[in-house]
């Protein structure tokens, strides 16, 4: 399919003039369907100062099917599962909402906006959403402590469970340390 042309164009857009706080790279140059993204926690939020790894997987049917986006770095957030899978709930990516004209750049910006403005009414972690609504100070404290524990230092893109990890790790071999404690 001609999706290669579209992906190549998007990759150029994202790397040539990257939006603030978003860095895109390919872990494997021969596979444009897997992107590694580093997201800087937006200033003025509990996530400020943290660096979050995102794995973007483009299905073969992209852009007719939505990309899959997961957090590789643990994060305390109502709309991200509080586990090593880091699944994320983003309306834009749901099949009934996804439009083939939507750019990955808008997706990444939407994720960044989600850090700035969590959506507690559409939560993946009901308890965290509840805390966010009722006790913002406690929420901020917990979110910051997660940042300190997992989102400082070089970003590590661990292969999510069930995926082959060998080729994946090569590009980041030197990154070790920092975030690995989160997988305990």
């Amino acid at each position: 399919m001609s999706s290669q042309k579209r992906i190549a164009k998007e990759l150029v857009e994202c790397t040539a003039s990257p939006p603030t706080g978003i860095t895109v790279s390919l872990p494997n140059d021969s596979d444009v369907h897997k992107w590694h993204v580093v997201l800087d926690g937006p200033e003025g939020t509990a996530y400020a100062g943290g660096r979050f790894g995102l794995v973007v997987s483009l299905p073969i049917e992209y852009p007719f099917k939505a990309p899959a986006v997961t957090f590789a770095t643990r994060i305390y957030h109502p709309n991200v599962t509080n586990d090593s899978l880091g699944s994320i709930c983003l309306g834009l990516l749901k099949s009934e909402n996804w439009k083939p004209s939507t750019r990955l750049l808008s997706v990444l910006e939407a994720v960044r906006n989600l850090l700035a403005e969590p959506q507690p009414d559409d939560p993946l972690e009901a308890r965290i959403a509840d805390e966010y609504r009722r006790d913002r100070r406690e929420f901020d404290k917990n979110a910051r402590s997660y940042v300190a524990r997992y989102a400082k230092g070089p970003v590590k893109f661990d292969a999510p469970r069930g995926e082959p990890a060998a080729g994946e790790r090569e590009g980041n071999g030197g990154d070790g340390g920092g975030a690995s404690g989160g997988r305990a």
Partner: protein
Amino acid sequence: MDTDDDFMSAVSSEYDRQDSDNDDMSGVEDFDFDDEPDTFIDSQKEIGHRRKPAYDISFRVFQPADIQRQQQDLIHEVNLILTISKEEAAILLRHFRWNKERLIEDYMDEPSAVLGAAGLASNSASSPKMEIIPGFVCDICCEDEPGLESFALKCGHRYCVDCYRHYLSQKIREEGEAARIQCPSEGCNLIIDARSLDLLVTAELTERYHNLLQRTYVQDKETLKWCPAPDCQNAIECGVKRKDLDKVVPTVACLCGHRFCFGCALNDHQPAPCELVKQWLKKCADDSETANWISANTKECPKCGSTIEKNGGCNHMTCRKCKHEFCWMCMGLWTEHGTSWYNCNRFQEKSGTDARDAQAKSRVSLERYLHYYNRYANHEQSARLDKDIYNKTEKKMVQLQKESGMSWIEVQYLNSASQALQTCRQTLMWTYAFAFYLARNNLTAIFEDNQKDLEMAVEALSGMFEKSVTELADPQLKVVIMDKTTYCNKRRVILLEDTAQNLAEGMESLGEVASPSACG
């Protein structure tokens, strides 16, 4: 008509607006199961002036042609009243979930707002068509080769025809979407109309699209549901609302013969309400290992220990070896079952004193569950075995006729008996799930008596199928079987009627059943 009004008046104001709009509800006919004699109702105690038993509900079956005609009629009507094209009328109706009155009302108020919200741009430019535009770059695939064919809806968001086709096939084939496919442009909610679609995709996909559109008519209306039987194309119309499912068990019967619950689409589970059924099935799935041994087809004779296989539905067992007669369900003496102290169905609560510690308590609670599960599973299994033996019997009867050159034996009564066994065992099955959750009160005894009476009637009828073919061919036995069949059906009606009334009046307290949980 009166019946419908009665029925609708029971519905709370919350739904009034919707209901009053469903003018096609007015044709709802009363439906009587033909295996339940109406005359019997008169002999019932305290039924009052109801014309219809409380467990029986109104519904109507629609065949594919009916469904199509109803949609076309509505589209035609809106097309005439609002002077818009049929495509637009169809999109508007789907947007308003086929609520014609509300659509017309809202449209008269603010046509442009309605068109906008439904994804129809109000400026009616010329019909969309495929075009080749110099310098065009497709924003989806990024192709820009000269001569690239492109297409745009009225909104002007233009993409190459290849991408458009790909997008539509993804939506229709992979996602099963039809009524709400929007323009591929981000943020544009314009809906793709049937005519544009016909222009773009293959005939095969168009057919699937129109099939899916048909289905939305049924899916969008709360009063309609597909018959869940495999290969059945019919839909059922029923006015029972979701919020009433704790008070009524809306069993409906499709023309294909499938009887199912309109509330949850599972097989008929009267008298147990949907939520109870859901919890019971979950509990059984969770506890399947503990309970598995029960559904085994063989047990040991309680007297001599020899292995006994169950091959009919009847629970009256006779050991081949020692002739001991016992009950398959409770393993007790069968002689006690025909008498007034029959209590095979009732769980004997142990006195509180010997259940002090937690372990004993959990054992008692397991025993209690197993008591009900045992009987539930048994009737399920017996229904299957009853059916097997009926099929064999019917075949043998036909065989017998051929070989003996006997005059044609009317075997319809055997079919009726078999049907009665199936339905009654289905009901019995669920009475045990129901009883498991039932909090003990003064109504429990009545319920258990009804259950016991139905159970004895069913076992007596089931026992008839153990007779040899020659015996069955005897006209006198035929009369006996027909009587037993009628009696079974009567007992079932009594049980369902009593339970349905108590349920409707909120008198059965289902202790352990939690209220339906919200599901995100």
